[in-house]
């Protein structure tokens, strides 16, 4: 913990960053902290409790535009950062990234290459609970699945916390706000809520870091992160790990396999 504070402080003192995005102690769990100078870095914490995906702030223009940013990033945040690079949203030279090494030490990741290497070398944190839930849902009949999701999604009141918490949802005008045509019912109704989630998850295909922030953010506790988690798995099963360039839906292989097209 002290290590990160020292490093972040150093960056300020050397004049290498203008803002450091990290965590501080919060009411119950660590919460995001924005250190704007060396002193403020002394509140930083970084441990396994720090699960919120801080990469979400890297596309927030009012926070980071024109600034050189330091950030402490969880495994999933690093995945998001790597993807944001693919999508032309970040500049290598204005970003200093710190991850947690396997022995829980602060590890500076100085380039996109190093981030990619880290992700290659580090196994993703297991998601036993989610995998179990998905298994349960998979084992349901189609009608049961419909009942399950229409019940869950009937509760959604469209606060869009799932969208706000997601680092990949950085569109300035989200599909739900497009009204010519009105693709998605903008009001809360089971179907409109489903349409929103289907869109969100389709848009996440091959881009999602699987951090689960959407589900954590949901104030009503709808397990929408299972949808993205399932999508990530489907992508992996069908198309392997994402390619360097483009997106799973913007690229293809002539030999892609399906079994349902007549």
């Amino acid at each position: 913990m002290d290590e990160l504070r020292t490093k972040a402080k150093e960056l300020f003192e050397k004049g290498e960053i203008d803002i450091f995005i990290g965590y501080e102690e919060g009411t119950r769990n660590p919460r995001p902290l924005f250190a704007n100078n060396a002193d403020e870095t002394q509140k930083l914490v970084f441990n396994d409790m720090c699960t919120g995906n801080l990469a979400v702030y890297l596309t927030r223009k009012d926070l980071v535009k024109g600034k050189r940013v330091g950030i402490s990033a969880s495994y999933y945040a690093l995945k998001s950062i790597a993807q944001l690079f693919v999508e032309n949203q970040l500049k290598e030279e204005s970003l200093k990234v710190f991850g947690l090494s396997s022995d829980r030490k602060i590890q500076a990741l100085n380039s996109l290459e190093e981030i990619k290497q880290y992700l290659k070398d580090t196994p993703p944190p297991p998601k036993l609970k989610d995998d179990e839930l998905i298994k349960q849902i998979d084992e349901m009949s189609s009608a049961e699945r419909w009942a399950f999701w229409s019940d869950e999604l009937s509760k959604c009141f469209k606060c869009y916390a799932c969208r706000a918490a997601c680092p990949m949802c950085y569109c300035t005008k989200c599909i739900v706000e497009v009204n010519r045509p009105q693709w998605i019912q903008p009001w809360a109704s089971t179907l409109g809520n489903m349409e929103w989630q289907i869109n969100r998850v389709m848009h996440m295909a091959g881009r999602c870091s699987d951090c689960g922030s959407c589900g954590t953010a949901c104030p009503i506790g709808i397990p929408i992160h299972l949808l993205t988690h399932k999508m990530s798995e489907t992508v992996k099963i069908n198309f392997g790990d994402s390619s360097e360039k483009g997106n799973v839906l913007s690229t293809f292989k002539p030999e892609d396999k399906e079994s349902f097209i007549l």
Partner: protein
Amino acid sequence: MSKIGVFVCHCGENISATVDCEKVAEEASKITGVEVSVDYKYMCSDPGQTMIKEAIKEKGLTGVVVAACSPRMHEPTFRKACSEAGLNPYMCEMTNLREHCSWVHEKGDQTTEKAIDLVRMLVEKTKLNKPLNSIKVPIHKKALVIGGGIAGIQSSLDIANAGHQVILVEKDPSIGGHMSQLSETFPTLDCSQCILTPRMVEVAQHPNITLYTYAELEKLEGFIGNFKATIRLKAKSVDPKLCTGCGVCYSKCPTKKIPSEFNEGLGLRTAIYTPFPQAVPNKPVIDKTNCTYYTKGKCKVCQKVCPTGAIDFDRPDEFITEDIGAVVTATGFNVLKPNFFPEYGYGKYKDVITGLQFERLASASGPTLGAIRRPSDGTEPKKIVFIACAGSRDPAKGLPYCSKICCMYTAKHAMLYQHKVHDGESYVFYMDIRAAGKNYEEFVRRAIEDDGVNYVRGRVARVYEKDGKLIVKGVDTLLGGKPVEIEADMVVLASAGVASHGAEELAQKMHISYDPYKFFAEAHPKLKPVETNTAGIFLCGACQAPKDIPETVGMASGAAAKVIGLFSNSELTREPVVAVVNRIASHEVSTCVGCFLCETACPYQAIVHEEIKNRAGEVIKTVAQVNPGLCQGCGTCVSFCRSKSIDIQGFSNEQMYAEVMAVLEA
């Protein structure tokens, strides 16, 4: 408010036999926004079209829906009619009451109901149509031809003769390609060089052709009509302006034992060389990998003997860029190196040679001056075996395709052999004889019947040497798989035609696609054989697939015709069915967030990065932009874009949505 005209066609009785056209027109008139709705026997007829035109003028229609046959048939007809009446042609849509309704359903209410729905769908779509204007793209009327074989030569000459500038780039020191290596050509047996060299000279002398030999395409940017090509001129070490081509240098060059590429290794050349005596340009280059000066730092004999001081060892590669309107790719092919077949002993036995090597032996300008001699001992082979399909049609070896030319040139080789070695005996092992082409079958028959070539249908399993003879073991399948063994003096492999070296790299430079064998892919296998997927880049010759000379020349003229057609206008006019990135008010400029994933989805490289700057000139945002010159209007980007920032004219999100809703909400 829309004023839509609906025009329901009976198509004689083609539609009205099963659809109640009057009712369709009547129901359509009740749709909000429909100003006029009529039915008529033949809408496409002159009176029918006049009816539409008059309605446009009298009622001030803002859109027209013609409910008739397939838009694939008459959409241009009706759009033209609308245009003539002053309505933007893209405000006219067709709905298909014939192929998709009256012809496929029985007469009845349901069929009429469906027809009404179909009309409703298109009315709702048309309400959201926007007037579109054809896209104009300026054209640089200069063509780049890559490859100086017969394909590139033919294409260059055709384009140049039509009055356009051509830049011809050839990677070797001379143009001529494979055709210049050939002895005689099938099916006429006229001498290849005799018909080719005049064309080569014509290229060199043509005022509209700029020839760059020993040069390669480095980079190609831009799009149809507006390419920018960067060409690397490899250092020749000989100043072409000073060199007179006298040949003293290569006669004095001490490094003499380099296998000649032109003679397929059957002859030798010097380090400073012209590939062959009839080379165009007939000026030497120094082969840096073999020249003693370049490898060891000593020699410079050529520099000493050159009467004009043309030798320049220190000259680096040069780069030139040219503005180009169209590209013709004519990079040809290579023959499969037959060490691919250890069982035939190529490389192990000197007298197992390729068809192309045989061409050099048979050529009057070749290493033996046209006499058929064994490379091993210079004796005349008395018994010769030709193995067709050496590599071709062999899925096990990864080349399932037919190389197309081997049957014919093998027949020619056997024939030439018989003509030159009267007491010789020749055998051809073949799988099938494919002699489709004018006078081709007759040619093969002549080889068999007149010249006594022995054709054996079967594959050769092995070739090995025994007592100075090449033992060819195969089977004759026509004799029920009877084993055949021939003691031959020479074996000629009709090795498969494969993509030329570096084809893949070149395709990637030009953003054109290629097949699994690295042959360049045509835009459509039937209807667009000389186009590629990238507009403005054309193909000809064996870079697309192995083919013979007449076919190559035909294709080369075809590609040239496409280029000339393109150059016949100063602007290119294209259908405006293209994608567009939206623009919104104020500082956001566009809802596009610049993720550029659409860039990878586009099959045509039509997405470019556009930097939006403020008044101070600072970049405030980088968004996608569609190059309308390249976009073909597939719309893959549109359904991929998450924020719906990109849309396609003519099939916009709003239009498609309205069309779908129209039928469901009715």
